[in-house]
């Protein structure tokens, strides 16, 4: 008989159920399958009512984050073979309100991204006209922010973040890393306006530097490092202002 494996999946349909339940499904075990393949098998062959998000199946669209045995994972990158023969428990990412089954609310996350002004800001009159071609940026300047630009917005770092777990208003690892991504970009001049948001009380000061966010990041963005860096530069701003109040324009 072919090998099989059990998945316990979090189910919640707000019109039908008052509270979530777990449903167990038996799927074929395939060495090459990821958790997402097993979930797709369930959807296609066993139970068409299971809802979840997915698209690229190659770890770049960021849609399919789930708790797999209690750990935030991209379900397209978590292989069944790493859990076999045990049971796999699949839940929506921690810390977000559940809409249905494995689908959770993410509008709040998008608002946080927007709040850090994640775009190139140029001072009035300092925009380079298109006719003059691209800005120059040395490979070294590129590497200053490149790893922060690798964030796929999968939100695993939020699910792992102990501060976010207690306070959903926390700006959170990905949004702070994104702010830093632009702060560190040699083409950008918007650090001051971003810093107001990032250094606000709901921002970095709540982070206790547990580092869970960087540990679960599938793309080595190191949001914890971004947060520490933001803390340091905000502290530097604070002291500079204290020492040189006339130099506020920097």
């Amino acid at each position, binding site marked *: 008989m072919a090998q099989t494996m059990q998945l316990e999946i979090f189910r919640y349909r707000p019109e039908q159920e008052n509270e979530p339940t777990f449903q167990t499904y038996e799927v074929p075990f395939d060495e090459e399958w990821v958790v997402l393949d097993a979930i797709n098998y369930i959807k296609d062959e066993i139970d*068409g009512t299971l809802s979840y998000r997915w698209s690229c199946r190659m770890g770049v669209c960021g849609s399919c984050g789930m708790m797999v045995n209690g750990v935030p994972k991209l379900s397209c990158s978590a292989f069944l073979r790493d859990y076999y023969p045990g049971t796999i428990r699949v839940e929506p990412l921690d810390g977000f309100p559940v809409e249905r089954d494995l689908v959770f609310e993410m509008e709040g996350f998008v608002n946080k991204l927007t709040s850090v002004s994640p775009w190139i800001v140029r001072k009035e009159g300092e925009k380079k006209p298109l006719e003059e071609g691209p800005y120059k940026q040395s490979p070294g300047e590129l590497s200053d922010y490149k790893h922060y630009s690798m964030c796929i917005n999968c939100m695993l770092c939020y699910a792992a973040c102990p501060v976010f777990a207690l306070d959903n208003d926390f700006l959170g690892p990905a949004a702070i890393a994104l702010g830093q991504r632009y702060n560190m970009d040699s083409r950008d001049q918007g650090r001051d306006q971003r810093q107001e948001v990032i250094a606000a009380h709901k921002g970095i000061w709540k982070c206790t530097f547990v580092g869970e966010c960087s540990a679960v990041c599938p793309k080595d963005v190191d949001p914890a490092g971004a947060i520490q860096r933001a803390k340091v530069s905000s502290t530097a701003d604070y002291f500079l202002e204290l020492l040189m109040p006339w130099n506020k324009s920097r």
Partner: protein
Amino acid sequence: MSLKHDIVIVGGGGAGLRAAIAIAETNPSLSIALVSKVYPMRSHTVAAEGGAAAVIRDDDSFDNHFRDTVGGSDWLADQDAVELFVNAAPREMTQLEHWGCPWSRNPDGTVATRPFGGMKIERTWFAADKTGFHMLHALYQTSLQYKPVTAYNEWFATRLLVENGRCQGVTALELRTGKVETVLAGAVIMCTGGAGKLFPFTTNGSIKTGDGMAMSYRAGVALKDMEFIQYHPTGLPGTGILITEAARGEGGVLVNNKGYRYLQDYELGTPLEVSDPNHPVKKAMELGPRDRLSQAFIKERDRGGTIPGPHGHVVHLDVRHLGEKKIDKKIPFVRELAKNYAGIDPVHAPIPVRPVVHYCMGGIDTLNDGSTSLPGLYAAGEVACVSINGANRLGSNSLTELLVFGALAGEAAAEFATAHGELDVSALERQGADEQARIARDFINKHGGTERIAALRREMNETMENGAGIYRTHAKLQATRDKLGELRERFANIVIEDRSLTFNTELTSALELDFMLDLALALAHSALARTESRGSHQRTDYPERDDERFLSHSLAYRGHDDTAVRIDYKDVVITKWPPEKRVYGQQSSAEKSPEQTPPGSPAGNPPVDPQS
């Protein structure tokens, strides 16, 4: 009740976002609805890897890019469109640079370029090997600053609203609530991408179901050149995950089961040693166009040169000679993907690859400004067919295409919407109510039925691969067409188990399959009617290109019932380069001297090694 905006954009990928920004920048007073079935950063633009083409080096020219693209298209591209495209490309790419896209750089800080298949000169801008990801995120993040853009994230558009001969909005299902709403506007821009999911083995994500093509087709707009489907020559077996052409642009080679670079036997030129400073030779061997490389794979398989594996036959893509440092710098994602999904570290072992469905050259028939035969409807990106891609798209033209034509469609739609602010609101709302009733009746409240959605989709995928794959014949295409007709009928008998109004993905799967069946039929009919071989459309029963009869775009119109398709044609626009024999390898070697300008010559950026 309906929602009202000046313009509705359907699809939040690269083309849709570029269109939104173009409108917001040029007409800040217009309100824009960005309706997308996924959050925009999930859109499939995210998966493009290798790069985006635009002339930037001093030793390159618009004419070079034009000729590469027209030749690559097997002369089916419209030359006026290609000329417009190559001229606009550098400005658009520079614009994206100003918006923060982290392009890889030369040591002097200028933008780096890499060689790509079918391109005569290094003109492909890249952000390592996650170019589409970085472009999409730069566009998305940039778009967030524009207040006139209202995002309808996770709203699934189901139908175009046409009244009084004009497209005046869409109906869309809000996934979170299950409500079908009407979103009215003076103009609609379709940017929903391609339809790779018609096929079983594809690089495309699950969302690439051709929704916008099908909605437009149902509204009476022609689908152009649908028979032209691009197979990318290097996908991972089993998953279909893309291994970028950049792997070959950086010097990777394709070998058969004897370690032999078999492409030399298929009119793609003669190989240079990988240690030769002139390797890889542009427009030859591994840097030939995708259609020819995928066809060569099938021929190699047929003569016993491929390697059998658990997921069918493969050949080997070998990048070992590049060394770990270069692999990690230039194609790190290739390494990550091969390690994770094929269990192969390309630093130490060749990567097993096979052709995989990648891109639709065809799509909604549009003019150069994105307009269609339906006033008020515009389209851009993979969903559209302008056509700059003709019978075969060159790698790295599509990312640039979505910028150039996304912006143009945005501007044209803004102009149209400004001139057509009056909407037939009550008639449109009646249509919206009808659509709401249809979705309730045929799907949410549908009882009985025995056909599983996944089973029908699988049968559709199989028949597409069998009949409409790399090599086609009349008999096989006819069998596919007949099978699709059967599936179309059986679709009426689907079973829907999920009655929930909250994020009902069984419903969206059904709507997507419904769309795909229409597109599959249009494709099969178009392919049956084109009794010649050109680019990606290869008919073994008609092996030659036939310019007498088929130097023309096919136009597929929806017929009088669900399965009927009417095929018409319109001429290709030829402005300055009449059709010639399409030659790679030999001709490229002959052309080689001018492009081998030595470093440091007055001819532009030195071909230095980019740092990242």
